[in-house]
């Protein structure tokens, strides 16, 4: 499973990436939407974990762009505020999301579910 992690909280992204790596998951992490699109152009990812609120290209917009670039990549949102996803997207596509802080096991569970 190859994963792209995008979050503007740099230390958080690094930490999460390291923990996933310790569990044998292949993770690339970047800090902005632009970097994420650049990565996605050259790599194929099974899942993209996106922070909703980021400066520049935000999570919601990034999801749309990634879907066009790589339709098979599944999306999981991370947010500091649980209700934002429903409010801002209002669609079933955004069914996968986690509210920070979360248990890593829960994320892995979602990732497995998404890939299957």
């Amino acid at each position, binding site marked *: 499973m190859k994963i792209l992690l995008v979050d503007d909280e740099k230390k*958080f992204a690094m*930490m999460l990436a*390291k*923990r996933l790596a*310790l569990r044998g998951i292949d993770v690339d992490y970047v800090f902005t939407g632009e970097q994420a699109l650049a990565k996605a152009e050259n790599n194929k990812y099974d899942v993209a974990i996106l922070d909703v609120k*980021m400066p520049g290209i935000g999570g919601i917009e990034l999801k749309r762009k990634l879907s066009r670039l790589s339709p098979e990549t599944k999306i999981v949102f991370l947010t*500091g*505020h649980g209700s934002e996803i429903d409010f801002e997207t209002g669609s079933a596509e955004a069914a996968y999301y986690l*509210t*920070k802080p979360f248990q890593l096991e829960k994320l892995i569970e979602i990732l497995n579910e998404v890939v299957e």
Partner: protein
Amino acid sequence: MIDRFRSVFRAIHPKFYRQKHKHLDHYFTFTNYRKIWAIGIFGLGAAALLPLLVITMIHYQLIQTSVDSELILRTERVASNARRAVTFFLEERLNALSFTVNEIGYEQLTNSDHLAEILRNLKLGFGGLTDLSVIAHTGIQVAYAGPFKLEGKNYSGQIWFAECQKHNLYVSEIFRGYRDLPHIIIAVKSFRPDGTFFILRATLETQRLIQTLSAYQTGEHADIFLTNHTGIMQTVSKHYGGIFEKMTLPVPNFSSRTQAVMTTDAQGHSIIMGYAYIYTQVADTPFILMVIKQKAGMMRVWQELRSNINWFVGFSMVVIAIVIIITCTFMVNKLYLADKSKAETMALMEQANQLASIGQLAAGVAHEINNPLALINETAGYVRDLFVIKEQYQKDEELLENIDSILEAVERCGRITRQLLGFARKFDVKIQKVNLSEVISDVLIFHGKEAEYRNIKVHVDVPENMPEIETDRGKLQQILLNLVNNAFQAMADGCRLNIDVASSGPDQISIAISDNGCGMPEENLSKIFDPFFTTKERGQGTGLGLTITYSLIKKLYGSLTVESKEGLGTVFIINLPISIQEKIIAHENSFGG
């Protein structure tokens, strides 16, 4: 007794009379209901009572003028009739004397028997004659018929003899003479065949003349009498002197016509004075006929009517005044109660809004805290992973670095919670020195992330020499938070928000919050401070934000203005006093402490 009176007054006095709710004063539309009440009563009273008074006075004036004219006319008529009677009385007797002297001649007239015969006939024909005498040109009385023995008397030195010689006819004043009885003499001059003159003189009783006058004395308030040209009374008057006394009224100016004028007598009574100078067709007389009417007596009927009108007008005015007082009291009380109810609602709304703000703030803080918490979580998780999975735990640099990350994240959480606590504490009403830069920064912290995400540029300009102001920090913070919130909601991503602080007078500053967002249509501008006015979708906005912001600014003795152009943006300008303490003292002084 006094206590009882006070308790009754307390029970009936209007609620606005004792306005006791200083904490609600800022929400009231009007501040002084007693003044409104007084102005209302005075204004309505003036509008209702003045026309009534003016019309009543005009009515009085008209009636008075009309009554005066009528009284003058009536007096003049009486005087005119009496004058004709007196003139006729004298003329008739002068003519009879002229006829006698021309018809009979000197020789027969000096015959005493014949003269007595003529006197008898004249008495029969005219009455009122006492005696008859013939005076030769020497002034010696040559013949006499009558009750006294006056033959041989010499009249050559007397005025009447000279006057008659001069004017041919003569009418005397009333005088006592040799006989010591009031009488009038009339005399006619004629000539003998030898060319010398002689005078036929008759004495008239005054009784007949007085009777003639008395016939014209109508009513108890009328007085009719004769006076001579120097003001010596010729007949008796009720009020103005006895016979031969000086009249207490001034002698009226000569007029050939009968006159009537309104004047006052020596006692200050208002009178109508009718008078006529008496002169016959053949000779002048020394008499002035006076007709005096006491105005008060003649006006009694009108005065009774006026008294009734006064009572009616007075009663009407009292009724009108009572109705006005009751109506004003009722209306002002209703207005006051409505205003009070609005003020109480506004106060509750402000409280609710404060709670909502705190709730919103708490939610925002929770959101902000979640990010560092997530980092703590992941870092701690990683440390745990290191222990469990990699088993590296001694003198490991990476481990230390990660522990530092945890501590740093905890510090971030601490900062946010400190700000949250600081913000909550600032809701207490407390006047303190406030640094505007700090307050604005505190408020913007809660919008920093949003501005970053939405690419909104926030520019704050506080001049370096801007003094600290004395105000309520918490309320100012809430005002700024509400206005900045509004601006963020009105702006699209990529817009710009400016907060400019400037000095707007010797003792006040202004804070302008301007955005280049969607702006407002002109028709909404006048309503934005109305409670419950919102352009947001149902459930999205309470419509109280700006209302409460406005009332908070009023509470800080400031003002709020707004300018907006649809599509271009909006500017809210807050003006605040540099020292709220001075304003509070001035406000309290203006209400008498």
